[in-house]
């Protein structure tokens, strides 16, 4: 019966779409406007980045990349991402787990708090840390007395990045975990599995695509974050400059070619991220479609067969 209902349902949808469809003229106008807009505001600048970066040839391009300060910036960016992403994967899974699987007071507040980094300006995020750990801040004097450097040092950059990228993993996982529910995990427990075995064999496989998607977005933002990092970094060349800060610095020094060269690296990162994201979405939708497919009961086969000619006519 499910197969039959699905087919009917789909038929009904396509018919209603046909009824409300725009005329071809309007359709083409809209598509052209959208394509022009994307071309002028997104595609053209992206092409321009690479054109500017490679304007003086590959030799000059690699010359810029070989500068010690640029190499230091690339290394620092990779380091920050390497610390931030695992931390936020852990926090994200924990937070999503709490929200999706338990009922507790203050749950909606927690959901709102997870979104805070999205809603607050990155500059404010940076300033929060200055206020906390800066020399004039609450913990500043104590940190100074114990010779612990957070602001204008790598720990500050990591903290600011963790803050900014916190929502990505949790946001991706909450709906997936809510949809899966607790039953499969409880089933594993009744079969004797420990909490860890349950997580590893049952929970993780069911959230893997959402998790990967979250990690990719989290990584892209961790590498590209400018505002919050700019506030806490102190812009010490070769020490606390990340790639986005390096781009700004080179540009302010009227080294347009250098700025575009480093920027092109970030652009490549963005393109790779988009590629993986599309791939994951495709995989996920394929798995979803597979899950919707129902093999009919033996006694249902006949029913499905009889309805087929009727569908053909409509």
């Amino acid at each position, binding site marked *: 019966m499910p197969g039959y209902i699905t087919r009917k349902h789909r038929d009904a949808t396509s018919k209603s779409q046909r009824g409300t469809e725009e005329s071809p003229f309007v359709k083409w106008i809209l598509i052209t406007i959208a394509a022009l807009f994307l071309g002028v505001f997104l595609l053209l600048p992206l092409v321009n980045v690479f054109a500017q970066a490679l304007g003086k040839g590959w030799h000059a391009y690699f010359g810029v990349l070989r500068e010690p300060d640029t190499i230091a910036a690339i290394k620092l960016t990779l380091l920050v991402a390497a610390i931030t992403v695992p931390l936020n994967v852990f926090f994200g899974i924990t937070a999503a787990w709490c929200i999706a699987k338990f009922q507790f007071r203050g749950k909606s507040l927690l959901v709102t708090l997870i979104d805070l980094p999205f809603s607050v300006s990155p500059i404010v995020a940076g300033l929060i840390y200055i206020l906390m750990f800066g020399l004039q801040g609450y913990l500043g004097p104590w940190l100074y007395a114990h010779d612990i450097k957070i602001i204008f040092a790598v720990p500050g950059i990591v903290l600011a990045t963790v803050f900014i990228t916190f929502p990505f993993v949790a946001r991706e996982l909450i709906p997936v975990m809510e949809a899966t529910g607790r*039953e499969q995990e409880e*089933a594993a427990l009744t079969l004797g599995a420990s909490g860890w075995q349950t997580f590893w064999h049952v929970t993780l496989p069911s959230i893997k695509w959402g998790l990967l998607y979250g990690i990719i977005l989290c990584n892209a933002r961790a590498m590209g974050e400018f505002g919050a990092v700019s506030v806490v970094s102190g812009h010490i060349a070769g020490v606390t400059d990340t790639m986005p800060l390096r781009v700004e610095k080179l540009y302010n020094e009227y080294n347009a070619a250098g700025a575009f060269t480093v920027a092109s690296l970030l652009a490549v990162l963005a393109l790779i991220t988009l590629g993986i994201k599309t791939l994951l979405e495709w995989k996920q939708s394929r798995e979803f479609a597979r899950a919707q497919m129902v093999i009919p009961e033996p006694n249902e086969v006949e029913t499905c067969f009889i309805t087929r000619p009727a569908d053909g006519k409509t």
Partner: protein
Amino acid sequence: MSIELRNVSKHFGEVAAVNKVSFTVQDGELLALLGPSGGGKTTVLRMIAGLEMPTEGDIHIDGKRMNDVPVQKRNIGFVFQNYALFKNMSVYRNIAFGLKIKKWKKGDIDNRITELLELLELRGLDERYPHQLSGGQRQRVAIARALAPKPSVLLLDEPFGAVDAKIRQDLRDWLVKIQEELKLTTIFVTHDQEEAMEVSNRIVIFSKGNLEQIATPREVYEEPGNEFVARFIGVLNVLELDVRGGLARIGELEFPAHDRPDGSKMRIGFRPFSVAVSANPLAYRTQAILRHTFFLGVMLRLEMETPSGLILRARMTKEEYAAQGLREGMVVSTFIRKYRILRGEGEPLSGEIDTPDPTTSTFGAGI
């Protein structure tokens, strides 16, 4: 294994989902937990499994107190309402899961799975994934998975709720057959009284967290412990009567009410099979019009309306209906052979009271 609950309660915040429940399940028994949704039956099942902790009271399995034993160590098999099969695993791996956790040898696992696929008629499906199975097949895989590690108790939460009627009947037969073969203590939750009646040895009836009655299917039907049970199991005609001069009346009907004060109310209940119906309008003292006849297979349900508008439901076999030549719209006569006095939801009913013989009573007086 026997299971015993002693004064078990479960509170969710302020709400008492289960309220001081005690009962014992014998070794090898097939027990149904029956009640309307929200009655607390699933919570009881989950507490036996160890998926919920009782707020107070003790749960014993095979004489051992289980309160502090985690779900993994209780050696129970649990079948969830929506199957809860592992979506990312094949049928084989689903069933093997518990065995791998318990570190069975590969050869033993293969033998056990072959055995279970045979038992549940799932041969040849071991490489399929849950999404490639029909509802009935999924349910059987879930049962196979729960049975694989040889549990001492099998617990099923609304096991047949999510499949359509025809497959549900097959699955019921399955459960009875398997339970008899394995002699496994089995408890299942259902809100379908017919299912509970047909499948189980004994039924525990819950309402609003309270245990209302525990008895065999026949007993709960014929000797309901209280008004709730009487109304929940099967069909019950309920009438509210006004007492005057030692008689309780409604419409054309009257019943003795000797020691009741005038102006008070009396409620009675009777099963459809206690209502006699005759095609001869003068056979019994009360006349009525046969409004509807419902075909329920072998039995028919009749709905009659008396001149004053009372609706009475009766039950008879097809053969008797045909022999009497009954038809919808016909004027018939009717008589309530036996009834019980109702005293409120949780209160016990009176014993069955025989109505005086219709042939010796004041014939035709009420009409």
